[in-house]
């Protein structure tokens, strides 16, 4: 049995047998919540490997697109530095720093370029959050 299947089975017992047998409201709620937690954890575990691969591919594509944009246009140094850091670190902290740099340079960039750059970043964010929704909902 896979870990996700095990968690799903325990969740079912908590939901169907243990929770309904608890008389007091507070502990009964705790039993049902424990079932929800185990079920979500199980789904997250089941998706983990595929999500990691998709996330890495999305990050590669984002960095490539941003590098290509920067190769043909002059951008404020803060943005160039943030893109370089993203290429190096490829993590959420670097992505946050890039988003912060874009907003700070909004006036210098002008609305069209700001929207284009942020829009490209947002495409990656949308794909990531859609994946997380597979187990979070």
């Amino acid at each position: 049995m896979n870990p996700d299947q095990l968690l799903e089975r325990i969740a079912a017992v908590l939901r169907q047998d243990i929770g309904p047998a608890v008389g007091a409201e507070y502990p009964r709620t705790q039993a049902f919540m424990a079932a929800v937690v185990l079920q979500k954890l199980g789904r997250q575990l089941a998706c983990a490997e595929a999500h990691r691969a998709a996330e890495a591919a999305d990050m590669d594509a984002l960095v490539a697109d941003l590098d290509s944009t920067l190769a043909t246009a002059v951008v404020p140094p803060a943005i160039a530095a943030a893109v370089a850091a993203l290429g190096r670190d490829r993590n959420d902290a670097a992505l946050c720093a890039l988003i912060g740099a874009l907003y700070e340079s909004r006036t210098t960039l002008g609305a069209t370029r700001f929207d284009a750059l942020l829009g490209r970043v947002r495409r990656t964010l949308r794909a990531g959050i859609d994946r997380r929704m597979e187990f979070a909902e």
Partner: protein
Amino acid sequence: MTGPTDQPLEARIVDYLASRMPDGRDFALENVQRIAVGWSHETWLFDLAWREGGEARRRGLCLRRDPGNTLLRHLSSLEQQFRVLRCLADTALPTPRPYWFEPDPAILDMPFLVMEKVSGTCPNPWGREGRAFYQAAADRGTLPASFTATLATLHTLDWRAAGLDFLGVPPPGTNFARREIAKWKELIDVSGHPPEPILTDLIAWLEANAPSVDRVTLVHGAYRTGNLLIHEDRISAVLDWELQVLGDPMYDVAYVLSDLNREGTPLLSNLVDRDSFYRDYEAATGFTIDDGLCRYYNALYAMRSVAFWMSASGLYAGGQSQDIRLARTAWSVPVVLERAARELGY
């Protein structure tokens, strides 16, 4: 109902209440119930029975204890809640009458307040039974009108005369929204949650688009079914005074209009028809509902929700709380971030 000391909590509550009511004797608690709603303070409901002047007396009470590890962390204060309830006690707004606040943890292990147990029920709007309750009430029409009228009372009460200016009066301009953003940012920072790029985007957008506010009212901050006590088809008390501020009434209106607070129904807060709400609220307050402003505040609520869930799941992860509902909120963070992304147009 026991606390960490040898004496059961119930007995210590009796001792405390007896000390506050020197003319009474033979005190006893009946129908003691810890309710499972709320994310912050522990809430206990009970009836106090005693004898006074040769007569048997009885009074319903509600006790809230602050375990110090609440979802709102340092932003939550029972003392402020008590103070707000005292200010509101003699206004037209239905609220529980506060009796005592005790900051000393030596009495009941943690600070607590005691207030009136107002008659009524508070059906959970997220459950099947609660949804059915509100749907039936919506069909009758009295409760929806009371919902809107009570919000109008809240927004038109003279907060200066009530002494509520201690909550902080925002100066004209963008200060109100910026102050809210800063408050929720602070909660996010202390939660210890890893960086979330959608949240960074949302906060930057909110800061860049903070609206200017020129009308200041009392704002409840979480005005919805589930935070309102209902008796005989009317609102008998507005509860959950933890998020109140002085600021833009559209902040509350946006919360009412938000689909955060309804499930599978077009009714606002599972109860009120949208057109009726607009008509009745505007007529009762003289304010015009600003849809653009409400959309902005809706995005701000997304940020606040993220802050709540990051804080809650952080408390469980850090071992400061054993409440499994808090553990479950780790999965609420992406759900609200997805909503935030949609608010921002992606």
